């Protein structure tokens, strides 16, 4: 497979995943803000920005609607949903011969949806409904990506993009939430504390899944365990790490190069970190540092994939 094509598929997928993450976190934050107790709206907004990876992404102005609107529609802001979806479509457009017509049509429709005036009008009247509409579009795209495309090398790069983006985003989210989770401000606010915990789970669409595993009894360490170490839940970081490992192996099986030692080592280390640790050990040690390491390893995997499959030096390639 052409390196450029692999790169475009990878980024198409990352951008879609990023858009989904942004929409979901915004949605959760907006509903948390309805409750006046607990953290202030400003603190919540800042936390949202931090967990999206850019503390000054959309600065706090107290005009909630225009802040949310900027985060969704402002194409000049790299954090925005529109920016991500534009990026996804632009990448898809360059590999139209590789993806299925259904994928292209779904993404194309979503792109036009984001740019239509009706969507912005709907946004002003009901933010929740508008966000739900965008999520629907994204889910449809993810769905047809899995069901209409041959699960060859291209699809493996799509998976790689999806899981790397998701693992990184979840690790960032946990890192940002972590101080609030484990240092509640006294027992009397437990109602608000509960809402925060539900919010965190909903940011990863994992509230229902959590309840199935642990019942509705929410505790910070169980949530951390679930989002970090669960091997069966698609938004848990361990699940993503398994997905990354499997995708890289499959790239080789479907005609790509053998992954270099370095890449195998980082992926193996990430896998081991999540597979052979208990949440007790993590909490006894430096939890923030643990999450930070995960993020660093995700970045490292990204770099190695880029350097090895996409932008490798001609000299090294000719030497083989």
């Amino acid at each position, binding site marked *: *497979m*052409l*390196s*450029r*094509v*692999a790169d475009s598929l990878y980024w198409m997928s990352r951008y879609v995943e990023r858009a989904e993450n942004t929409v979901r976190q915004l949605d959760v934050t907006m509903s948390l803000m309805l409750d006046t107790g607990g953290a202030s709206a400003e603190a919540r907004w800042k936390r949202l920005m931090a967990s999206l990876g850019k503390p000054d992404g959309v600065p706090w102005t107290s005009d909630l609607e225009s802040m949310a609107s900027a985060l969704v529609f402002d194409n000049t802001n790299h954090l925005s949903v529109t920016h991500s979806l534009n990026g996804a479509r*632009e990448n898809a*457009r*360059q590999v*139209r*011969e590789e993806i299925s*017509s259904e994928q*292209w*049509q779904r993404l*194309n429709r979503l792109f036009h949806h984001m*740019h239509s005036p009706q969507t912005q009008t709907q946004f002003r009247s009901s933010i929740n409904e508008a966000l739900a509409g965008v999520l629907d579009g994204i889910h449809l795209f993810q769905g047809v990506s899995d069901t209409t495309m041959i699960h060859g*090398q291209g699809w493996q790069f799509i998976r790689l993009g999806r899981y790397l983006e998701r693992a990184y985003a979840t690790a960032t989210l946990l890192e940002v939430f972590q101080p609030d989770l484990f240092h509640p401000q006294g027992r009397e606010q437990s109602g608000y504390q509960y809402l925060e915990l539900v919010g965190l789970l909903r940011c990863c669409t994992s509230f229902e899944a959590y309840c199935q595993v642990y019942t509705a009894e929410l505790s910070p360490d169980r949530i951390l365990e679930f989002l970090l170490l669960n091997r069966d839940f698609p938004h848990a970081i361990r699940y993503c790490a398994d997905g990354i490992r499997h995708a890289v192996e499959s*790239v080789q099986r479907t*005609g*790509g*190069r053998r992954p270099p030692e370095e890449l195998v080592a980082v992926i193996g280390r990430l896998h081991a970190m999540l597979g052979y640790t208990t949440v007790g050990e993590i909490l006894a040690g430096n939890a923030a540092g643990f999450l930070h390491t995960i993020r660093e390893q995700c970045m490292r995997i990204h770099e190695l994939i880029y350097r090895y*499959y*996409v932008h*490798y030096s*001609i000299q090294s*390639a*000719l030497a*083989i």
Partner: protein
Amino acid sequence: MSTGNTVELETLFGDYPLDRAFDEMREAGGEVRPQYRALAETLAGLPPDELQRRKQSADLSFLTQGITFTVYGRDEGTERIFPYDLLPRIITAQEWDRIERGLTQRITALNLFLRDVYSDAKILNDRIIPRELVYSCKHYRRQMRGLQVPRNVYISVVGSDLLRLNTGEFVVLEDNLRVPSGVSYMLTNRRVMKRTFPQLFHSYGVRPIEHYSQLLLATLRSLAPEGRPEPNIVLLTPGVFNSAYFEHTYLARQMGIDLVEGRDLVTHDNVVYMRTTDGLKRVDVIYRRVDDDFSDPLIFRGDSSLGCAGLFNAYRAGNVTVTNAFGTGLADDKAVYAYVPDMIRYYLNEDAILPNVKTFLLGEEKQRQHVLENLEKLVVKAVGESGGYGMLIGPQSTAKQREEFARQIEANPRNYIAQPTLDFSRAPCLIGDRLEPRHVDLRPYILFGDKVNIVPGGLTRVALEKGSLVVNSSQGGGSKDTWILEQ
């Protein structure tokens, strides 16, 4: 035809004008031509809104398939659907036979001409074609002199534009020997048509064209360098911003080959490679959809990043086939065009089966005078342009435009030719809920590898604006499916 149907048909035709121009469907007296009768009966038998309904469903089909072309100079919404007319253009087996023989003859001669000019230049030495005409051509590439091209095939993918005059005879208006486009519309038009009029299509006995992509692949394969039995064939596109990008992706997908951009290619030791996730992979045949100028910054335009540095040297070394060859634009220069019948006589010792359009060469004093005195009756074209740009249509021009062209002709006579304004044929198109005649041309697609191969069909382009003579998609043209009958 029963009388009941005729009435219906007359409503459909309304005040459909028939005048000097050849009408594809109706004879001068209004009678429907034999090959169109079954179509006319079908149209007459349809309920009133049915035609509109089918038109809408065909349009929707194009839209959802994303069959679009790019309009330059706009920021967003740059992709447009290529307008499509519902009624097929029907060509009889006998007419097609002549077209096929004529084009085969013409392409063979043009290829011999290119080979000759880039080697011994006999045709110039024998003074059949003026030397200065060839050497002053913008698309002449001196780098091609003495270069051996695989199987001596310079032009393996060609799309020639034909017109039908009021005598009913087909003539060649121009040959596109560089990077002709539009074949994807020919193929998708057929697909949509089969869905729109399935029974009618079946009853007509239309010759198939669907194997074009396979033929193209076989053509490319036949031109692979020696000793490469399993050649790696790629399609080189300028990228997503090119107006024909849809076609590039379409053909690559149909042939199952990689669609590459210049940045995917590297050359080393005169071998071209593409970057893949499995390392560098050797490229053997490049179906090039990038103009000469942008193909190799080391040889052609240095400021272009669309091509691949070193490509030309690899080509010269015979390690990669690039098709069409470089410098083929020489033979579709509109002034060189005037000499094609002479080439056919010179190389093949035959008379041209498909005639040329009368062409005035403005480099010649007497012809130039005649043209300058009759600008309002003539069409003036810049020799190296395509896509309907750089053109003056005399009868539809203003005095100011004519003055401007006269000045440009005086300044650079070699750069222009003139032709009489042609009354070329018209075919009925569905405009609103009526049929109205619109001017059409015909672009068959010719492949040349082991031998000349023409799929029976082509793109019928339509000047959708009333009275317009310009059929180019960039200038408001549309298209029709073209049916070549079995017999």
